[in-house]
């Protein structure tokens, strides 16, 4: 019983993941993915197992001290799931990024852990160019960082938690109307009366007022807000069909071809509405009437689907592609999920780092709920700058605490200035914390960050559920972790 079903499982099994650095952050990410059933993994890490690693990494043990960490972690993961194809490369990821960028093209997705800013930027360019999905994850004391970097990720099966049923009571089609009219609500038979589904009741209620006593009538009243669900499509779907990619040509992906067909449907046959989803929620009713009502909804959904399918085939023909290159089942799923489509786009980290949304950054730094997360965001970058300048991690040495902290603070302030946020507050306690952590990798923080990272990887590969947008900052002090949209 998997939450992402058979198709999702198949996608995972076909995928090939590359992990950079297998400290606890990377190892825990990969552990969850291997348990999830990914097909193949390649672990890249140039370091040897040290005694200190025994205190934070479950995938190394005493017998492995002195050996290649990548090799050790790989062996453990293989034991976890013997079906996975596990390889290791004993090389420093930073060096690989410099000398062999084409190495990354072979993978479905790269999980890059514990990289500093300049390596992140280089790798990002490489993967974006090669169209390889990329996810960054990092643990630093009680702080953590997760960021997806993909040009565009589209989701048909977004499976949101709560979404209004597609009842169309505010805009019923002829068959639904006439079905409702065949039910005689005024009939004296009390049994028949209480077995009328609320959809029908609401339909008829719009014409006349009646008393409500039984469960089904109560349901009608409770559900009546659904009658007032706005007609037409929501703002998000509107944005998708207005997107430039909906103007399709021969290079367009299947998704955008279907969006183009959808757009045409909405404008014409749909009269402003998306295709009917076709399923209805359970409601108090006699079995017979409920099943008949279900059939009415299913028939309309099928009719809408056929119209869209025709449009898809025509567009494919027009753009010089095989009209049957998109399977029926895919178009059907697209129609069913039309109201819930998602398009996710991610800026290059370089762009975000050099040009973050100032208004958002300032808001985050001044908000009590966001200030620690935003502070950590800035300080992680400041720590990288510090290390690049002074050739040592802030806090590495026990002595010179005050001087070190002062230097870290001035580095952070300079960064804020560079970004145009010179007035923004920077929490001094947080600066001291950053010094205190000295780039340590704590197991529990790594496990949390690894959990988040692995979950997002699964969403990206199965193309189900909506991946996070923005940059995730883990805040292990008061757990007010946040997603920053910069």
């Amino acid at each position, binding site marked *: *019983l998997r*939450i992402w079903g058979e198709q999702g499982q198949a996608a995972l099994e076909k995928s090939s993941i590359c992990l950079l650095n297998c400290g*606890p952050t990377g190892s*825990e990410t990969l*552990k*969850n993915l291997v*348990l*999830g059933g990914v097909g193949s993994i390649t672990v890249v890490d140039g370091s040897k197992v*040290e*005694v*200190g690693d*025994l*205190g934070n*990494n*479950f995938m190394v*043990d*005493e017998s492995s001290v002195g050996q290649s960490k990548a090799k050790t972690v790989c062996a453990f993961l293989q*034991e*976890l799931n013997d079906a996975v194809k596990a390889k290791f490369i004993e090389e420093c990821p930073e060096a690989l990024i410099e000398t062999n960028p084409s190495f990354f093209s072979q993978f479905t997705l790269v999980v890059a852990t514990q990289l500093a800013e300049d390596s992140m930027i280089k790798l990002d360019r490489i993967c974006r160019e090669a169209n390889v999905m990329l996810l960054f994850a990092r643990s630093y004391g*009680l702080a953590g960082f997760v960021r997806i970097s993909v040009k565009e990720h589209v989701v048909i099966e977004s499976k949101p*938690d709560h979404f209004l049923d597609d009842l169309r009571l505010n805009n019923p089609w002829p068959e639904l109307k006439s079905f409702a009219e065949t039910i005689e609500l005024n009939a004296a038979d009390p049994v028949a009366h209480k077995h009328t589904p609320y959809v029908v009741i609401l339909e008829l209620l719009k014409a006349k007022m009646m008393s409500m006593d039984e469960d089904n009538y109560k349901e009608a009243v409770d559900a009546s807000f659904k009658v007032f669900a706005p007609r037409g499509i929501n703002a998000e779907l509107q944005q998708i069909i207005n997107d430039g990619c909906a103007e399709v040509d021969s290079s367009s992906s299947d998704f955008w071809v279907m969006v183009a067909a959808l757009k045409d449907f909405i404008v014409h046959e749909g009269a402003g509405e998306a295709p009917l989803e076709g399923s209805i929620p*359970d409601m*108090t*009713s006699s*079995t017979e009437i*409920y*099943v008949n009502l279900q059939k009415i909804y299913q028939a309309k959904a099928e009719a809408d689907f056929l119209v869209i399918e025709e449009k898809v085939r025509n567009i494919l023909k027009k753009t010089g592609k095989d009209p049957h290159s998109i399977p029926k089942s895919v178009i059907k799923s697209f129609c069913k999920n039309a109201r819930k489509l998602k398009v996710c786009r991610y800026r290059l980290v370089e762009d975000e780092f050099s040009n973050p949304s100032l208004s958002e950054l300032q808001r985050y730094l001044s908000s009590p709920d966001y200030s620690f997360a935003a502070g950590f965001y800035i300080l992680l970058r400041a720590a990288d700058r510090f290390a690049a300048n002074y050739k040592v991690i802030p806090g*590495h*040495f*026990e*002595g010179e605490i005050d001087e070190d902290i002062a230097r870290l603070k001035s580095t952070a302030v300079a960064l804020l200035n560079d970004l145009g946020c010179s007035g923004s507050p920077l929490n001094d*306690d947080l600066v*001291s*914390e950053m010094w*205190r*952590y*000295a780039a*340590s*990798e*704590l*197991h*529990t*923080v790594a*496990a*949390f960050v690894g*959990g*988040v990272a692995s*979950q*997002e990887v*699964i969403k990206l590969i199965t193309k189900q559920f*909506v*991946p996070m947008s923005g940059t995730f900052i883990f805040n*292990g*002090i*008061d*757990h*007010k*972790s*946040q*997603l920053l949209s910069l």
Partner: protein
Amino acid sequence: MASSAVQPSRSRDLDKLLLRSGNLVGENFEPGPQLRDDLREYVRILVVGAGGLGCELLKDLALSGFKNLEVIDMDRIEVTNLNRQFLFRLEDVGKPKAEVAAKRVMERVSGVNIVPHFCRIEDKEIDFYNDFSIIVLGLDSIEARSYINAVACGFLEYDSGDNPREETMKPIVDGGTEGFKGHARVILPGTTPCFECTIWLFPPQVKFPLCTLAETPRTAAHCIEYAHLIKWDEAHSGVSFDPDDPEHMKWVYDEALKRAELFGIPGVTYSLTQGVVKNIIPAIASTNAIISAACALETLKIASGCSKTLSNYLSYNGVEGLHIKVTEFEKDKDCLVCGPGILIELDASVTLQKFIDLLDEHSVLHLSKASVTHRGKNLYMQAPPVLEEMTRSNLSLPLFELMGKVPKDILHVTGIAIKDDKKTSCLRKLRIVFKGVDGVTDMDMAGGA
């Protein structure tokens, strides 16, 4: 200036938190090697549950400086556990989860000692739980959480000003997951709300109305529950349905299919049958990893003071993007479980039997078949028969005498209460005050001190 220690240490990363001072730390934080060594030597942590959460918790705690761990779980390993309970292998199927989990973690993390307990949590004496510094929960049932909560809160004592006495406060860290969602919370009895204070947080379980199942099924789930809840008893009177028995499951599936065909309802599959009957929401390794990590981190913070703690409830939802929210819930001062205890005033002449009868009639408690303990001593036990016989003679004695003739004290009672139409066994704390026997009564004072 001096550089970091030359001697390589396992504690290389943890040392940053434990040996260095900070400003965003716990009240009594004393950084230094002593703290690190004390965590290893003296702090004892109990993990309740060795399933998806429990396995992650043991690993996380073993790698967070704790060396004395114990784990309790009454289940054996099944094949379906293997995809997320990463400590278990195919050859472990059938063995007790607690034992295998303990063994595996000890194999990989040298120096940690984990004592497994293959039994129900109710099988342990209450004092067993008092031996631990912190209790961490990786459970999947409300009832089990309720039980441990009542046990831990039972240790809490209040002073004469009705303030909780800190040395009797037994922290609980509780985690739970369901699909992409989860929660982690810190319970400091007497200070934060306990599990019972916020029981309204749990949504009621989905139950189908009986008439729908019997007369007007509309969905596949209705057909399945009909076969499971109604048809099973009709056809197998006396034999209770066992969801882990594949023969039973197949029977329910076949019956559900027949009914579905009769009513023209599509969608009954074997997999759906299992899901509906076992009320399963598929578990995900990553959610378990996230929640356990949060719980283990909080455990480290509570034990060491190395950082501020979660205050006090974290909810997590990874369905659409990522949503993490921290809520500071407030204690219910009238809570039956973590409050100072329900006050019961009695005449010194009331017998133990009369007291037990009173509990049944009590307007709030409604506790029937009560067993009574006072400061660890059994005053009356309803079961087992040998204990019942031994304590039966106490029933006719005045409670005041049995409690050592003190004017007021705490009693613990266990019995059956009715919650949501279900009979559940529960543990309650009572504050007994004997009328007219207070140390500062008018009679005593009249004679001068």
